[in-house]
């Protein structure tokens, strides 16, 4: 017996047809991705000298992207693992959309580290000669484990829906039907299968929650474990983690609004979801502000010499524009929008969430660069400077394009709203699965 879902038709509609518009979009995104690949090849042949990086700014936009994309990936795990454990059943319709962000941003996060390497072809030295004392190896371990478990988690919850596609989409091309058949692993919607699946997902959710906390903390320790001013603070871990969840959740709003509009899923991805996310976002933005104040007040109040050089540079020096711009983008404007305009208004929510993510990218940048520009040797070396060069810009654009491409293609072949999780009746469940009412104006 299949799960019964009123919205089955609407959810499967986008999967039925790839339009000319899709091909144009995919082509454009692919072109951007290839431009980035070209830039990387150029960099591989010539050396990292074609970037804007120098001494003392040894890490630039690539490492910024690494931190940002890994942060973006926290969206899915937060929504599907943490909220799952917390028993927040309203999240059901958006779990897959959020998890897909995780899945498709992780490769570009992990990839950014490889792009940044002077000798990417020596990557397996990490396996042969790894030194576990190095934060880089902590990152590699945490991120690859995260990627692996995200794939498993995502795939498991996709199986029942793949089975539905296999049974329903009989007019799809042969290769596509064959793909569904293979990926469905013979799922036949038996009550026992569903009970087992729920059990596994619950268990994995606990593991994923621990992992998600670990991953971004470890990412921050790339900086925090050094003695460099501005980085060497115990708060950097929690601060990075909170920022990650904030930017991830904001990304979910953007994606949700797009899916709703483009695939006409207004009924399924109802306004109530945006209102729930809005409350979460208000909490995260305030939490972010709290950490921001805690960190900078501690540094500013104690006013240690080298620390103050970096702090002054951010507050009123070279990086003041980016710093205060970032504060306005992440906190100032979005908080006002969320509080006064966001309720029942998708447009305003998307606007604020785009600002949050622009700001979060800048925040990563402003954590990394000013510290490098003002090293401890500053008095003798003179202040450094850094501006990203063309290859770095091309590769950054390519990362975003690649992520969008994977997302766009995925949604044309698999249902982006979990059919079984939002079903009114699920085999093996005594009660009808909880579907949040389309609350408007909660």
């Amino acid at each position, binding site marked *: 017996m299949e799960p019964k879902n009123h919205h089955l038709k609407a959810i499967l509609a986008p999967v039925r047809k790839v339009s000319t518009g899709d091909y144009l979009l995919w082509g454009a995104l692919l072109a951007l991705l290839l431009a980035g690949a070209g830039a990387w090849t150029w960099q591989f042949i*010539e*050396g*990292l*000298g074609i970037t804007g*990086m*120098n*001494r*003392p*700014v*040894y*890490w630039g936009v690539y490492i910024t992207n690494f931190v940002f994309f890994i942060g973006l990936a926290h969206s899915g795990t937060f929504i599907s693992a943490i909220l799952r454990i917390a028993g927040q059943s309203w999240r059901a319709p958006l779990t897959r959309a959020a998890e897909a962000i995780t899945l498709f941003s992780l490769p570009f996060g992990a990839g950014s*580290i490889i792009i*940044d*390497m*002077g*000798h*990417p072809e*020596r*990557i397996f*030295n*990490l396996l*042969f*000669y*790894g*030194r576990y*004392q*190095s*934060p*880089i*190896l902590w990152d*590699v371990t945490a991120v690859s484990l995260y990627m692996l478990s995200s794939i498993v988690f995502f795939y498991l919850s996709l199986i029942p829906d793949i089975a539905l596609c296999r049974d329903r989409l009989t007019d799809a091309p042969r290769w596509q039907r064959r793909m569904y058949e293979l990926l469905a692993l013979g799922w036949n919607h038996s009550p026992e299968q569903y009970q087992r699946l729920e059990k596994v997902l619950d268990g994995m959710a606990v593991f994923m929650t621990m992992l998600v906390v670990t991953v971004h903390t470890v990412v921050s320790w*790339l900086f925090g*474990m*050094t*003695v*460099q001013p501005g980085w060497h603070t115990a708060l950097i871990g929690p601060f990075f983690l909170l920022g990650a969840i904030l930017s991830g959740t904001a990304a979910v709003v953007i994606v949700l609004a797009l899916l709703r509009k483009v695939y006409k899923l207004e009924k399924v991805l109802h306004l109530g979801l945006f209102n729930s996310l809005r409350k979460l976002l208000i909490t995260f933005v305030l939490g972010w502000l709290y950490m921001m104040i805690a960190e900078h007040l501690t540094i500013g109040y104690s006013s240690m010499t080298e620390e103050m050089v970096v702090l002054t540079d951010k507050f009123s020096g070279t990086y003041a524009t980016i710093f205060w711009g970032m504060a306005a983008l992440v906190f100032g404007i979005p908080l006002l929008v969320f509080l006064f305009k966001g309720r029942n208004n998708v447009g305003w929510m998307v606007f604020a969430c785009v600002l949050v993510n622009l700001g979060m990218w800048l925040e990563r940048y402003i954590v990394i660069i000013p510290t*490098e520009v003002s*090293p*401890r*040797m500053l*008095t*003798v*070396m003179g202040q*450094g400077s850094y501006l990203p060069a063309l290859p770095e810009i091309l590769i950054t654009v390519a990362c975003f394009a690649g992520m969008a491409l994977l997302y766009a293609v995925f949604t044309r072949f698999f249902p982006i709203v979990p059919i079984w999780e939002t079903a009114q009746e699920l085999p093996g469940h005594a009660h009808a699965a909880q579907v949040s009412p389309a609350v408007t104006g909660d």
Partner: protein
Amino acid sequence: MPRWGMVIDLDKCFACQSCTAACRMENNTPPAGKDQAGMGRAILWNEVLPFVEGEYPNVKATMLPRPCMHCDNPACIKVCPVQATYKNEEGLVLVDYDRCIGCRMCTVACPYAVRYFNWFAPEWPEDLKAHLNPEPEVQPRPKGVVEKCTFCVQRLRKARETAEAEGRTFQATDYVPACVQTCTGHARYFGDLDDPDSLVSKLAHSPRAFRMFEELGTQPKVFYLKQG
């Protein structure tokens, strides 16, 4: 086993930079050219840095020669993910150029900024190319790896070989890095810090001696003797 260390007397240094030049020729560091040097990409294993305190008219300038500190507790080694940078049994901090993956975590972690990255493949003008040091330890490094001062390990090996060929025991005084040998003002001293009778050991315990960023706990093996 000796524990190699260096002492630099700031009273004797007059910033002629012959140490920097000697280092370049001994260790085959490529000239970066004007544009690249302007971007801060020059590779100078040894640099003489102007350390200026105060504002006109009360300015105090110190010229600070800066090789690698060869720390006993180096920040760079801990963070290297592939053990490409390591400390040998004589306390020298070295880099395995064949293993380095070019992640530049060590360059970011080193508080003394002694580690240099090869942004491009190294190049020399023809005239200079004819004079590259043929020793295997200093063969030109490929692009994409980190390099730094080694206290001229190749000279240490050669000194040991010479001692063996002459049928005598190797003495700590048989070996000095190129910068020490060339120093015009005799401002640099080199030797075994573990030998209490060695000159470096005595100077390192002088009341004038200090180490850079002592508070970071890196325990550098390069000591400076205070000016004035």
